[in-house]
């Protein structure tokens, strides 16, 4: 492609939808593992059987976000949202809706069918407060067809940048937009690009951090699976802005679908000349290579990632020098997160003021969150900065299931902290979250209820950090392990108050002395749970009790003699022979032998066994 005109020809062609119906089926990892590919096959069969090939186009798209209700299928033009679709539903959908034009109401997302008129998706609780910017194309286009991306305005931004703007102007636009890094630290993107642009070198690099190692986070995965071209376009724009001709996307190997979609996208871009030499006939050249991770969380750290691309153990490096000066292969490099890149084309096309009009004073734009844990509507949401946690949990998320009480929300994964109920009304932005002891993080948001033990959660995160520590610096290598040992003692009821002092001291040391953010933030879950749930720690240490009923060593399993019918089911299933009693007589659990495995509670039909 040698000119913007050619781009526009492709766009116009792609916008003409020949078919009466377009059926979007989610092909993200979540829905795929629930069988969405078989649904597509069944759809193809039924459509053929009904002679509807000319009327219906099936498009495998990216993630719609409402993962709790997958597999998901949306029929356009009506926008009918079919949820939890099963193979056996397909014949009815095809014959009733696609052939006869009657929406199959009983298979639609329940919330849309509560009234006479089918509620448009944008008005449901899950979607009405969302504003999809980074996710705008996910679920709308086929990620494996570059024409569809071009059809919705893709590569216009790159064309504008290369033909109408100077590198300095591009950096100014990004700076004015207020975009901050979406990987977790929130560093101003424009400033990062400006530093790299200012350094002279014979080669510079643009890198994309697609390692997404936080457990519970899948925002980047969805963008890569649903709209990979947005990332490619943005990286090319960044290359122009800082003076680089080569980019690398470092994607974790645990995302095979994302890797596949990226490979297809890169090849299609190269075929159309949107990557390679002389893009849009302007003489600018840029190419992108894919590098796979190999299962190391630490490689999500900036310098560790670059060290890994260089073919080494993924160990971080001391800074200064910062990557903008000496990064990949010791050349000036920028590294941005997938979601950060996903915002760039829109900012170029719609202008920085548009982006800055969303969000709060210091945190502009939107943020994608992966909602998980004890919440009804698990999935992916994109909301303007400044939305409160209460809105996310109670409205968008549909509340905590089973009538349980909200206890805390964890953001930032193993580097983050928990937000308790008292802060539910804090508007979410980078600085507010830091002020209350948490952090934005990459976007994983795990909701916990009254049945979760906060000490156990802190221990869980430390187990992860200990495993993933690269071992290079002493504070992290040894400090995290010592912290974990103390947490294990606490959860077993073997700790003293001196241990708690030691734990806090270790937190301080790791924060100030670790080489990289993995070690520096490893204490965060401990610090934030100590801040808001100190009473739970004290209960474990002093009273040897776990208030939430989680830490096994502190629990006693007991049988309520009034409810026990003496059916002997529990004593028969007990692996330790800890339950005694005669038939028809109330049974008793010997706490010395009891392993607290819970098999008896599962078997009891009278609810006579409880933990305290």
């Amino acid at each position, binding site marked *: 492609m040698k000119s913007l005109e050619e781009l526009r020809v492709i766009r116009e062609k792609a916008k003409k939808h020949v078919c009466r119906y377009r059926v979007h089926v989610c092909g993200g990892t979540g829905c795929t593992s629930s069988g969405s590919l078989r649904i597509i096959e069944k759809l193809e069969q039924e459509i053929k059987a009904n002679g509807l090939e000319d009327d219906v186009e099936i498009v495998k798209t990216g993630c719609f976000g409402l993962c709790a209700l997958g597999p998901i299928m949306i029929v356009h033009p009506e926008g009918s949202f079919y949820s939890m679709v099963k193979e056996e539903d397909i014949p009815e959908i095809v014959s009733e809706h696609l052939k006869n034009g009657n929406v199959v109401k009983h298979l639609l997302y329940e919330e849309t069918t509560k009234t006479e008129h089918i509620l448009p998706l944008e008005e449901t609780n899950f979607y009405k407060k969302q504003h999809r910017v980074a996710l705008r194309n996910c679920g709308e286009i086929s990620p494996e067809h570059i024409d569809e991306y071009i059809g919705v305005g893709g590569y216009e931004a790159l064309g504008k940048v290369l033909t109408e703007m100077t590198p300095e102007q591009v950096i100014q636009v990004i700076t004015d937009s207020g975009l901050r890094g979406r990987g977790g630290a929130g560093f101003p993107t424009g400033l990062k690009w400006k530093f790299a642009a200012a350094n002279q070198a014979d080669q510079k690099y643009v890198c994309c951090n697609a390692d997404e190692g936080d457990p519970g986070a899948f925002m980047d995965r969805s963008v890569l699976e649903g709209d990979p071209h947005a990332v490619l376009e943005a990286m090319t724009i960044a290359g122009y802005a800082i003076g680089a001709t080569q980019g690398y996307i470092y994607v974790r*190997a645990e995302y095979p679908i994302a890797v596949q979609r990226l490979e297809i996208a890169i090849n299609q871009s190269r075929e159309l000349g949107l990557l390679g030499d002389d893009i849009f006939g302007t003489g600018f050249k840029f190419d992108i*290579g894919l*590098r*796979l*991770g*190999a*299962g*190391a969380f630490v490689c999500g750290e900036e310098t560790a990632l670059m060290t*890994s*691309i*260089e*073919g*080494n*153990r*993924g160990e971080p490096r001391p800074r200064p020098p910062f990557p903008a000066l000496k990064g990949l*292969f010791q050349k000036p490099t920028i590294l941005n997160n997938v979601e950060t890149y996903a915002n760039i084309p829109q900012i170029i096309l719609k202008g920085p003021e548009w982006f800055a009009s969303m969000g709060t004073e210091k945190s502009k734009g939107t943020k994608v969150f992966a909602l998980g844990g004890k919440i009804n509507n698990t999935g992916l949401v994109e909301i303007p900065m400044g939305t409160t946690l209460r809105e996310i949990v109670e409205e968008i998320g549909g509340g905590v299931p089973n009538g349980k009480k909200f206890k805390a929300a964890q953001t930032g994964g193993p580097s983050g902290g928990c937000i308790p109920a008292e802060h539910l009304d804090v508007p979410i932005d980078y600085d507010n979250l830091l002020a209350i002891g948490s952090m934005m993080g990459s976007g994983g948001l795990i909701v916990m209820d009254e049945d979760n033990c906060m000490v156990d959660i802190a221990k869980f995160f430390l187990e992860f950090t200990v495993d993933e520590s*690269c071992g290079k610096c002493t504070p992290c290598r040894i400090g995290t392990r010592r912290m974990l040992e103390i947490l294990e003692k606490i959860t077993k009821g073997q700790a003293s108050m001196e241990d708690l002092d030691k734990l806090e001291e270790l937190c301080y040391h790791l924060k100030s002395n670790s080489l990289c953010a993995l070690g520096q933030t490893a204490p965060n879950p401990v610090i934030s749970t100590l801040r808001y749930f100190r009473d739970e720690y004290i209960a474990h240490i002093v009273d040897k009790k776990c208030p939430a009923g989680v830490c096994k060593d502190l629990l006693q399993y007991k049988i309520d003699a009034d409810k026990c019918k003496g059916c002997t089911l529990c004593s028969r*299933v007990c*692996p*330790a022979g800890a339950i005694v009693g005669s038939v028809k007589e109330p049974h008793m659990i010997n706490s010395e032998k009891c*392993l607290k*495995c*819970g*098999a008896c509670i*599962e*078997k009891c039909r009278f609810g006579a066994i409880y933990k305290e």
Partner: protein
Amino acid sequence: MPEKKQTVPFSGTKEQEEALLEVIAGLKGEPGALMPILQKAQDIYGYLPMEVQKMISDETGIPLEKIYGVVTFYSQFSLNPKGKYRISVCLGTACYVKGSGDIYNALMEKLGIVGGECTPDGKFSLDACRCVGACGLAPVMMVNDEVYGRLTVDDIDDILAKYE
């Protein structure tokens, strides 16, 4: 910790070697090529024994110690092959108290390998795992996705015989 008894003898074929050499030739010029080379080598061989690491070292000129350092750093790279049937013995508390430790030891004896290894014929690999949540069936072991419960040491022979 028990001494490593034996590893699966390396049985790389000529085709695999040619495939590996092709991969290396294609990637040699790339900066930082070691990671993609190791990833593709593991695709070809299923794991990265010292023999394969040595081949890579000879072809690329990268010291063997460095390659070994990279292989042992990343959890995806495996020095041991996984067998056709992956045996996972639960050593969680409930199972342990019911004798899964004895089952684990018996398996090691019968198969002639220690935990983490694979039998010489590539059939069985053995690992310990934490609780699989089937404590009512303790002691428990899994072979691929099949769960076997209420095990005794005597059951092992029959179970192993089921797998071709």
